[in-house]
């Protein structure tokens, strides 16, 4: 069964109103090519799960795709706040369900492990718990008297991840190994779409099976998207593109300027190649290239 498809067809697997979980962490390894395509297809009313997110959430909000963000943190780190996230949440246009990283992980694990809840000590004593009376329960262990938080299931309709390589059957490899928490969303999702730097022959997987990250039965569609994490990084291949973050944040100071920027630099270019050319082209790719680890 050949799972390789176009980015357009893969994005069509995401219905309006779906709960979509986004891989990567902060400035790293986000599935930006696929996120761009969701914006281009004008998805609506998405619930977006991003454990520690930034640019992908901001694009989806700018594109009008988002009903609610479920996250521990949305920012551009030292490069600033995520401007559309900030503005739309402040305006009440987009909802935010703030969890912490580990509370979200535990909810995803409860879903993945088919358990009514996963326990953790995360969140005790904070104001996060009171936000979620329906999904987080503070409890006391009857034997030891210890406090813990029972985190209920978080079902995910579609997980989007970006990785280094896949074969046609859907085996996926993150090289040199999985570092961020993408496996937590893949394991909790009904469907996972993987964009990859390269589609490779199955032989590359059978030759080094210990390096396979996700087996084919966890992956439902594969799309080849070189530099598909741009402007976030993909260790060890390339770093994040600071200039894009700066230009984006600068444009976002004025709504009209941002609208033009977003059309020209993000949604307008017809293909992912065109997108890369609109954002610095070959020179940008050379600038962010890393010596391989």
């Amino acid at each position, binding site marked *: 069964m050949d799972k390789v498809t176009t980015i357009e067809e893969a994005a069509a697997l995401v219905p309006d109103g779906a709960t979509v979980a986004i891989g990567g*962490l*902060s*400035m*790293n390894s986000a599935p930006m090519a696929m996120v761009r395509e969701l914006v281009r297809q004008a998805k609506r009313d998405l619930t977006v799960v991003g454990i*520690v997110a930034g640019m992908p959430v901001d694009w989806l909000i700018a594109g009008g795709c988002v009903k609610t963000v479920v*996250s*521990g*943190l*949305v*920012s551009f*780190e*030292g*490069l600033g*706040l*995520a401007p559309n*996230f*900030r503005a739309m*949440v*402040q305006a*009440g246009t987009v909802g*935010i369900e*703030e969890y*912490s*990283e*580990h*509370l979200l*992980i535990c909810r995803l694990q409860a879903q993945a492990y088919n358990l009514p809840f996963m326990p*953790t*000590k*995360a*969140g*005790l*004593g*904070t*104001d*996060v718990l009171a*936000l979620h009376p329906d999904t987080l329960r503070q409890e006391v262990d009857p034997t030891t008297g*210890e*406090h813990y938080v029972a985190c209920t299931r978080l079902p995910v309709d579609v997980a989007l991840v970006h990785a280094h390589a896949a074969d046609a059957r859907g085996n996926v490899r993150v090289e*040199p*190994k*999985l*570092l*961020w*928490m993408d*496996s*937590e969303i893949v394991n909790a999702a009904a469907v996972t779409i993987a964009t990859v730097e390269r589609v490779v022959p199955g032989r590359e997987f059978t030759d080094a099976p210990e390096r396979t990250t996700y087996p084919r039965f966890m992956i439902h569609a594969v799309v080849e998207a070189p530099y598909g994490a741009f402007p976030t*990084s993909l*260790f*060890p291949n390339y*770093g*994040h593109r*600071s200039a894009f973050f700066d230009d984006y944040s600068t444009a976002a100071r004025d709504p009209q300027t941002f609208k033009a920027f977003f059309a020209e630099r993000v949604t307008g270019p017809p293909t992912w190649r065109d997108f890369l050319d609109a954002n610095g082209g070959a020179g940008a790719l050379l600038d962010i290239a*890393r010596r391989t680890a």
Partner: protein
Amino acid sequence: MTAPVPGYDCTVDELMVVTFSRAMSNDTLAFNGAVSFIPVCGYLLARRTHAPELVWAASSIAIDADPATIPESTLSDGLWGGASMLSNSPFDFWTYAQGARYNTFAFRGAQMDAFGNVNNTVIGPYDAPKVRLPGGGGMADLGAMIPRIFLWSSTHNARTFVERLDFRSGMGWGDGGDHRRRLGMPGGPQLCITNLCVFDFEPVTKRMRLASLHPGVSVEDVRANTGFEIVMPAGEIPVTAAPTADELRILRTEVDPTNARHREF
């Protein structure tokens, strides 16, 4: 640029890094999150001076990293050079964090209160925010799990140091007293290092207590820039100890030659 410290041959960022560094030891097992230049410099400096066995996981990922320079993101792989292990987040990191194998973490908040609790979620009401901040990230997790918590701030003023947080994103000493112990949490905040002074925590109430003043800063300066009542120690309040020439040389030439730490100011 950051301000020079009167009478010391250094700037305030350097004094903060050195003070942080000296609070570390050979049994420190630390990691860092986003925008954490002061702690990252502190771990690296401690390892190059008095604490060679100190463990530091860069970005919570790269154990024993020894980067040539510090990049613009402290979650970036640019920080990972020389590591002896690239651990991962889902299994390695959260196991070592939950089990307190890592014993040291540092965070700052847009707001901090007298008990070392922090807010990085929202200014104003949660449902009708005046300013929506990035969110607590791992603060609610690591505040509960890690026994030695360090706080820092490069913006010591009454908007940051407040009587009442708009939202408690991360747990310090909670409501004070034995609140952490009642919830089953290990340890708690140890120090809060700011651009004006150093606080420790009064052992019974767990409120911030003035531990030392940076040169040129008065008690009144600190009071005027702090929104809550500060516990005063018995006796005279010492001046924050001066960095040695060695510490400054190593910080400036080996640890952070490109002054990444200035991004916090």
